[in-house]
């Protein structure tokens, strides 16, 4: 059968789901963060495939922005995690419950 | 700019001014508060005096004036003031009580600055609420007066249940007010989009011409009834009142129980009933039963109170029942009577709370078991208290009697309410007398215990307000037409609107036509 838009979308959706699952289940902040990257990438995939099949390149420009922003976010995020690790000697979410209720 | 403007704006301005007076000049604050309220009172009396002479506008309102700037004309909100027979008495009463309260608040010894600022704010709010001809500001000023009440009870209140009382009264009244607000907004939305306004005269005219859709009435009236009812401690939403007043400083209790509380009743008479006639008629029987709850049930509760202030508080709740009964009768006599009691009870409540406040300031307790025989020491207070008690159980000569009798006659005129009326009479005549006399007996009569040997009777600043209140009760009690002749035309119109169409099949009111 012919590979169409849906196939790509399904793949991206699964990728999105994987990322989500990672965010929910993993405890290591860095891994969580990777999962988030995964989700962003799934969006990229969706955009690219759409832009391909709709024959419209705007989507790819969006992807470009997304990648850049993601990079920025990663930078800040990792810096933050590092700073936190310096204080707490841990990158575990369970250890980040000084504020609750 | 009419006399009304000054009446309500004076206290507010004074409150703002006081904010800039250094707090160690307590005496200045007192002087200012008493002085301003005194002027307000004089203006109020003047206004009442000139009422008949003053020119009335098309809708029968006098001294009509609008305060520019306030409100938003795009929504039909404008701060419009005016009085007709219905609220003129209330405004006068409010002004007098405010002065009395200011005199009585000399017992406050801590944080006077805040207290007097709040007191004046409250006064301004109260008077504004009663004289505003715009539903929005009617509500607005009420809230404005309500907040100080809460804070005053919280900060200067007495008794160990103070905090609980504060929060209870706060929440209860907020619920009531908000329900009423929703009702008022819904009412406002009944007008066609382009001509929406909160202007009471306009609304009255509009609803006199086209009655509200039945479904809309079914939504609006119950809301207003419930909301206003809670504000007036309608049974079974009464439990805040006694406790709240018991814990409040006397000035606050005087102002709230005496004046501010009448807001709900005023709203019922002015807005709810004439605007939603059909549904109102349906609810009147029900309302009468609730009123009975106030008169009888709360009366019984009052019989059991061990604390003077709680007793008084409950009694004032019980009196509300008579007013509700009068409203429920939905005829000229009853409604007029209700208005009369509103005024009378204002004076009375202020009187009783002022006196109990004095006794408290002297003895430091209001537990009746500890008091007794005080009449020997506190001659003036004793006499005043006995008079208050007598007025409380509807003794002729005081204005209360006029109101209660008219209410009874009014209710009797409505066949379905007769049974209730009989019970109400029992509550007013017997139960009322029982707890009032019990208070007199235990507090004033009997042996004077040794520890009260050195009590001192009220000084001038305490006698003055009470004498004033008693005098007002007596004057109106002897010449009720001073009041009723002003009230009658308005109530006539309201009753006309309320009974505009013949009662529908499930409407309960059957008017006895009387030649």
């Amino acid at each position, binding site marked *: 059968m012919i590979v169409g838009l849906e196939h790509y979308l399904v793949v991206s959706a699964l990728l999105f789901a994987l990322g989500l699952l990672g965010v929910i289940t993993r405890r290591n902040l860095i891994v969580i963060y990777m999962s988030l990257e995964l989700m962003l990438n799934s969006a990229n995939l969706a955009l690219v495939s759409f832009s391909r099949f709709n024959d419209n390149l705007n989507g790819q420009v969006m992807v470009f922005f997304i990648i850049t922003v993601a990079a920025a976010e990663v930078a800040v995020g990792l810096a933050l995690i590092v700073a936190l690790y310096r204080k707490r000697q841990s990158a575990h979410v369970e250890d980040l419950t000084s504020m609750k209720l | 700019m009419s006399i009304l403007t000054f009446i309500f704006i004076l206290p507010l301005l004074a409150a703002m001014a006081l904010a800039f007076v250094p707090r160690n000049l307590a005496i200045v604050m007192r002087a200012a508060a008493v002085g301003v309220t005194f002027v307000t009172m004089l203006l109020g009396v003047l206004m009442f005096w000139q009422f008949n002479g003053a020119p009335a506008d098309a809708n029968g309102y006098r001294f009509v004036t609008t305060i520019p700037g306030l409100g938003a004309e795009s929504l039909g909100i404008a701060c419009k003031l005016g009085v007709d027979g219905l609220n003129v008495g209330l405004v006068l009463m409010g002004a007098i009580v405010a002065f009395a309260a200011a005199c009585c608040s000399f017992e406050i010894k801590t944080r006077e600055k805040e207290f007097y600022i709040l007191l004046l704010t409250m006064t301004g709010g109260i008077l504004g609420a009663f004289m505003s001809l715009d539903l929005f500001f009617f509500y607005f000023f009420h809230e404005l007066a309500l907040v100080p009440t809460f804070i005053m009870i919280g900060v200067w209140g007495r008794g160990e249940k103070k905090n609980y009382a504060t929060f209870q009264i706060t929440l209860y009244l907020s619920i009531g007010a908000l329900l009423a607000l929703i009702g008022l907004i819904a009412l406002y939305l009944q007008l066609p989009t382009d001509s929406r306004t909160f202007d009471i005269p306009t609304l009255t005219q509009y609803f006199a011409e086209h009655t509200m859709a039945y479904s809309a009435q079914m939504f609006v009236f119950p809301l207003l009834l419930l909301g206003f009812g809670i504000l007036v401690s309608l049974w079974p939403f009464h439990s805040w009142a006694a406790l709240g007043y018991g814990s409040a400083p006397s000035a606050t209790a005087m102002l709230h129980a005496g004046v501010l509380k009448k807001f709900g009743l005023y709203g019922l008479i002015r807005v709810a009933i004439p605007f939603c006639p059909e549904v109102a008629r349906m609810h009147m029987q029900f309302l009468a039963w609730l009123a009975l709850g106030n008169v009888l049930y709360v009366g019984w509760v009052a019989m059991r109170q061990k604390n003077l202030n709680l007793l008084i508080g409950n009694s004032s709740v019980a009196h509300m029942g008579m007013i509700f009964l009068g409203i429920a009768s939905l005829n000229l006599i009853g409604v007029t009577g209700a208005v009369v009691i509103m005024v009378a009870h204002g004076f009375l409540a202020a009187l009783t709370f002022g006196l109990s406040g004095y006794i408290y300031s002297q003895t430091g307790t209001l537990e009746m078991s500890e008091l007794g025989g005080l009449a020997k020491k506190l001659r003036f207070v004793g006499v005043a208290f006995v008079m208050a008690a007598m007025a409380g159980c509807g003794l002729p000569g005081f204005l209360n009697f006029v109101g209660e009798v*008219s209410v009874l006659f009014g209710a009797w005129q409505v066949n379905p309410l007769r049974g209730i009326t009989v019970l109400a009479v029992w509550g007013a005549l017997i139960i009322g007398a029982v707890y009032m006399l019990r208070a007199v007996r235990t507090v004033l009569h009997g042996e004077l215990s040794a520890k009260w040997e050195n009590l001192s009777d009220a000084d001038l600043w305490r006698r003055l307000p009470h004498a004033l209140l008693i005098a007002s009760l007596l004057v109106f009690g002897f010449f009720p037409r001073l009041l009723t002749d002003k009230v009658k035309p308005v109530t006539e119109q309201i009753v006309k609107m309320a009974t505009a169409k013949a009662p529908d099949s499930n409407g309960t009111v059957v008017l006895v036509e009387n030649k």
Partner: protein
Amino acid sequence: MKYEVLPWVILFLPLLATGIITLFTLKNEKASATLSVGAIVVGFLSSLLCFRAFRFSPQEFTLNWLDLGGLQVDFGLKLDPLSLMMLLIVTGVGSAIHIYSIGYMKGDSGFSRFFACLSLFTFSMLGIVLSNNFVQMFIFWELVGVSSYLLIGFWFEKASAADAAKKAFLTNRLGDFGFILGILTLWALFHGSLNFGVIAKYVEENPATTGLTVAGLLIFCGAVGKSAQFPLHVWLPDAMEGPTPVSALIHAATMVAAGVYMLCRVFFIFTPDALTVIAWTGGFTALLAALIAVQQNDIKRILAYSTLSQLGYMVMAVGLGGPAGPTAAMFHLTTHAFFKALLFLGAGSVIHAMHHEQDIWKMGGLRKKMPVTYWTFLVGTLALCGVPPFSGFYSKDAILAQALHRAHEYPFTGYALFAIAALVAVLTTFYMFRLFFVAFLGEPKAHEAEHAHESPGVMIWPLRILALLSIAGGLIGINELFDYQFTGVQGQYSDLITRLIEPFRHAPAAVFGGLVAVVIGYLAAKAFYGKAKSDPLPGKLGPWSRAMANRFYVDEIYEATVIRAHDLIAAVADWIDRWIVEGFCVGLVRGGTDLTGRALRLVQTGNLQSYAFLFVLGVAVVLWFVLGR
């Protein structure tokens, strides 16, 4: 001088006096006394003028007091023989007692207060007398109640006095409860009119109906309260806690008579059935009170119970109907006012002399110590017992006669009531002479009695005057006047002799009955108490005497039933308020909200993972909500 002004003057002078005294002269006793006494004396004189002016030309002056469309309340004065006569009694006897109290209250800390209250009472009483419509009458009715409350509780430091005052007020309120309901009923029946005249006309037009009967009985309740008829009679004896002049004025002469007066005033609304009830109530009260009186030892209480039984007489008389009934009632009311006031003042003088000792068994031999009091008291006693030619004889006879006359129509009621009346007469004589023998004759039984001495002139003179009236009261044509009031025909004036023997011609049977009763009573009293040192009766009657002494336990019954019940209900209400409304409902809402809050915020674990999880979960739910279908 225009006479129209006078009634207003009469009515409002006392009020003025009260006002001035309370406001200004509380410190100045002399001024207060002068004001109060002056007010009532002037009132008395003007009443005399009015009497001359309007005796046979009834008048009515009216102002509108309250005007609410359907409810028109006037403030009016009705001057007709009835009110005029009552006016004279109130002001006349009143004056005497005012003067008397100057002496009696001397040195009391609340001297001025006393006179203020006294004047207030006079005002309210006059208001009842003069009022021309129901609401106005109710107004003053209430005022009378409160002024009596103030006077009974005059010595409020005394617990007993304070309680008595409270009791009196509440009991009266019970009566007023019926009264106001009656007024409402009438008002509804008669298209919103309240004026006596108008309603009278209505009643004439349409015959007796059940509605009318009900209204009548309800209004009668008012009288039952004020005139202390069974079952609301309990307050009167306790009211003796007040100063003796008060007992004399209020609880003998005027206030308690107000009920009877009211019955006569609105006589026209009573249907035959209503009248029967009234009559029986009166008769029963008379008998009950007389029986109780036999076993009382407190001189004032004895008089109080005799007052009760006499009031029962009057009410019964009203109930006996016809024009003659109310006539007789009013006649007896008048004479009773004289001699009962006299007796009370006499008792007061005795008590004064005995340093407020009231137990007759501590007295004795006062005859020589205080002769005037002795003689006047004797006169009063004779009048009360109905010995000709004392005033009491004539009025009582009129009642007995009416009872027999009633018997033509309603045999049972008539004869039964006659019998009761006769029996009561016996008892009256018995207990009065018991009192007389024990208190005045024999030897002093306590040292107060030995050192007792006659009271000052200001107290003696009123006694003398009242004694005079008590002797002559029956012969000065009072009854003709009332006759005119109720029949409307002006009786012709006959000379003294005819009046003296009139009863014997008119109703010999009644006379005979009455006299026999007196003789029996006197002999019995003589036999038992001629020389008695202590009361022999308890020994003879045993439990009966105890029952009498304890007023047949009526108070106790009330205590056990009505009051207890009310307290119970109140307790229940209070409990509900405290626990159900306050505790449960409010508490539930408060607690519930608070709990929900505490539960809900457990979601905020602070754990990032669970946050993310909830985030996703929420999104999933929303997605389902929107796209799930």
